[in-house]
């Protein structure tokens, strides 16, 4: 098997043939409502995915601006640009927003857009739930951010340790915004994760048996499973904290039998898996981009898949490494140190799989590839500082110092943001139908990568010199001045880089050259569809013959062969193919829902519920929750199986 020559000149021939057979009728069947109504009622995974990206990108910008203000404040010692009240809200909101409202949903955006395309289907398993997830994400994000102008943004840090966050020490609404906002978002995330898993289990194109599932899909599924198992712990903690603060229960109240460390366990049982929840799909992007631009399939596919799944599992057993300074027993410290070390092994396997892929292939340098390789550079630096923390006394020295801040920005920014930029540059032509400027992309890369290192590398030194994190200012003369100044300068280079990147994309939208179907000569199914894809994605569902369907010759041909087969064209209404979990036997043609305003209504009512809870209008909360349930009941009632030609089992 060798990399096929790049298909140039636009449309993939096999798809053109298929489209000429059934394209017109599918266009008609899948036509979308334009305008505002269409915006509210759409259930199309690509539109929803795009929205996820734009919204999460917007929150990234806001949280990034928070960071710029923080960096300006910290640029010089004894600075008084912001008050301590504001600074505490800024860093808390920055952390919360970057983790919950940017990194996870940005991945969800890519997942929404590309998971169905990569597995060769027409939509997500539960398109209406998908729409709900998005609206809930949007509204909970607005809920969270709109607190800042009122001075009510969370101010207990992103992990909000009790008892500080109890009502006694932080009496305002700030922490209620935190608990409610995160519970609110959790609904969205949980629903979204279930959706990803079921889609990947039941809707893969015929022939895409487990050993032919793209790695990106594996990472999204692993991530979704992790969310399903990890989020409840955070939800429970937040619910308990909310009850403690509002209704006087005593889960964390030391005077009445509660305990402060319980919160830390509950938070980090979620919190540690969460960092891999963020990084796994990002690694999935890397595993997609690197083979394409190395012109060969990924090395050691089974090992990479195993490593992905193993990371997901092991990550549930290391949470105590965030609590090494709490004074737990030596036995548990040793145990969790060992677990922490174990988790580096799957990371190493993946790292070397990418490196070997490059060394055995032919490297093509594009902006996406530059970002992908810069991920390797950043992640190894962030990864090894993580390994250093497994030496418990060393961790006790640097925990809660800027050394940790450096570690987690190297793995979060380097490990998640850089791959996301790689993904954006890689998939941009598919999403928008336009190419980006090559030179512009390289300048973007240079600015962002330089800015990133200049910002975060000096933080290692600040931490080693004893600078604790979460301080709004610091005295001069302790050796902290210079690293901080450099970091601040770096942050502005970074901001310039993002501004430039934004213009590169804007320029592409306005006047970029049109993109062919498969500009990179890639290997996965999304490149068979149009740029941008039609609402129905595939005129004919292909049969997948290998892990690299675009390179094996046969998978594409199957689109042409099956163009008169109703089971693959499904032209009568919104339909999709349901296949068996392991070997993708065709089970059924499944009706898919049409456009509907129900998701929007559900989300609005749930928003009303959370706002009422926040302001303590409990009757209003009851009413809106009741209405929300009624809408959901109506939703369950009006199922496509009854009022429309066929059923789609959906709950």
């Amino acid at each position: 098997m060798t990399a096929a020559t790049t298909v140039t000149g636009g449309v993939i021939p096999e798809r053109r043939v298929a489209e000429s057979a059934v394209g017109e009728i599918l266009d008609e069947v899948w036509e979308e409502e334009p305008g505002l109504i269409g915006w509210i009622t759409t259930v199309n995974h690509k539109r929803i995915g795009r929205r996820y990206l734009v919204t999460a990108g917007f929150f990234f910008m806001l949280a990034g601006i928070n960071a710029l203000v923080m960096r300006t404040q910290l640029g010089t010692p004894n600075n008084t640009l912001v008050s301590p009240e504001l600074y505490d809200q800024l860093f808390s909101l920055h952390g919360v927003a970057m983790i919950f409202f940017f990194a996870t949903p940005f991945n969800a955006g890519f997942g929404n857009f590309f998971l169905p395309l990569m597995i060769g289907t027409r939509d997500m398993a539960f398109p209406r739930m998908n729409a709900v997830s998005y609206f809930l994400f949007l509204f909970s994000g607005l809920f969270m951010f709109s607190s800042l102008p009122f001075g009510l943004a969370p101010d207990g840090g992103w992990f909000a340790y009790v008892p500080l966050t109890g009502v006694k020490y932080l009496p305002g609404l700030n922490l209620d915004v935190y608990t409610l906002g995160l519970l609110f978002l959790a609904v969205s995330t949980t629903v979204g994760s279930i959706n990803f898993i079921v889609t990947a289990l039941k809707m893969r194109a015929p022939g895409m048996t487990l050993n032919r599932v793209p790695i990106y899909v594996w990472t999204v599924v692993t991530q979704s499973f992790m969310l399903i198992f990890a989020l409840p712990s955070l939800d429970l903690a937040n619910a308990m904290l909310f009850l403690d603060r509002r209704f006087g229960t005593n889960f964390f109240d030391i005077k009445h039998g509660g305990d402060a460390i319980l919160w830390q366990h509950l938070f980090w049982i979620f919190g540690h898996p969460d960092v891999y929840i963020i990084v796994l799909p990002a690694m999935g992007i890397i595993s997609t981009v690197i083979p394409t631009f190395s012109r060969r399939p990924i090395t050691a596919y089974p090992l990479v898949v195993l490593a992905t799944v193993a990371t997901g599992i092991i990550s549930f057993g290391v949470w105590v490494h965030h609590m090494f300074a709490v004074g737990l027993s030596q036995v548990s410290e040793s145990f969790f140190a060992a677990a922490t070390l174990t988790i580096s092994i799957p990371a190493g396997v993946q790292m070397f799989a990418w490196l070997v892929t490059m060394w055995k292939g032919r490297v093509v340098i594009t902006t996406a590839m530059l970002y992908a390789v810069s991920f390797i550079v950043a992640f190894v630096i962030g990864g090894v500082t993580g390994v250093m923390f497994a030496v418990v006394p060393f961790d006790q020295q640097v925990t809660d110092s800027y050394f940790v801040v450096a570690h987690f920005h190297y793995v979060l920014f380097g490990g998640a943001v850089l791959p996301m930029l790689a993904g954006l540059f890689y998939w941009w032509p598919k999403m928008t139908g336009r190419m980006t400027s090559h030179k512009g992309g390289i300048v973007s890369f240079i600015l962002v990568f330089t800015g990133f290192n200049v910002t975060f590398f000096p933080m290692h030194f600040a931490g080693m010199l004893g600078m604790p994190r979460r301080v709004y200012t610091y005295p001069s003369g302790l050796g902290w001045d210079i690293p901080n100044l450099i970091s601040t300068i770096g942050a502005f280079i970074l901001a310039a880089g993002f501004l430039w990147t934004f213009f590169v994309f804007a320029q592409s939208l306005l006047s970029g050259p049109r993109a062919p179907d498969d500009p990179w000569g890639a290997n996965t199914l999304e490149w068979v569809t149009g740029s941008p894809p039609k609402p129905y994605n595939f005129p004919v569902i292909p049969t997948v013959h290998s892990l690299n369907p675009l390179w094996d010759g046969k998978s594409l041909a199957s689109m042409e062969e099956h163009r008169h087969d109703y089971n693959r064209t499904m032209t009568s209404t919104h339909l999709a193919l349901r296949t068996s979990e392991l070997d993708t036997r065709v089970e059924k043609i499944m009706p898919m829902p049409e456009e509907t305003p129900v998701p929007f209504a559900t989300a609005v009512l749930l928003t009303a519920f959370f706002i009422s809870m926040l302001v303590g209008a409990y009757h209003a909360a009851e009413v809106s929750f009741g209405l929300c349930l009624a809408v959901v009941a109506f939703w369950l009632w009006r199922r496509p199986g009854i009022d429309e030609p066929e059923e789609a089992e959906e709950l």
Partner: protein
Amino acid sequence: MTTLDTRTEQAIRRPPRAAPERPVGHTTGWWGMVLFICTESMTFAAFLASYFYLRFDHGGPWPPAADKPPHLLFPSVGTFVLVLSCVTMALAVRAAPKGRRAALGLTLLVTLLAGCVFVAFQCVDYTQEMPSSTPTKDAYGSLMFMLTGLHVVHVLLGLGMLVVLVASTLLGRIGPKRPEPVAIVSLYWYFLAVLAVCIYGTVYLTPYLS
């Protein structure tokens, strides 16, 4: 090189009959419910773990000296009834594909009733536990009321699903052609029963073992 061709009549209108008559394998709805149950189980697992964590962290007698041990009568009967209702639920699952609409309606109704009994008994128990224990007096009370309370909320959710099922049965919207929803709801109902046993054991029985 492939040639272009025009659209054929064959490809355009064919009724959706091509797939096998009886769906094989699990549906997306089934998977959705299973995953939902997974995430719910984790919530309760974390809650039960918190119960024992606070209990052993607290040390000393449990319930704390200021509280009385829990009353057993109503929760025991309620839990028993809820567990028993799994039988009628299972009968409903069997009746649905066979088109026995009366049997289906009846079994669902009995299940629904059992759920109501459980909720009612739990509420009666709350009145008995107070004022010796309250949600706000100490961690013991908070745990007891909130853990069972969260479960009650989930049972109410299950009852909501049953109401939709009963109504659908009456209107003929579920039946032999469409038995799936009953099976899916039954999963949730069994889950509620298992939870009830775990919570009963933890909240009502373990305080007596110390």
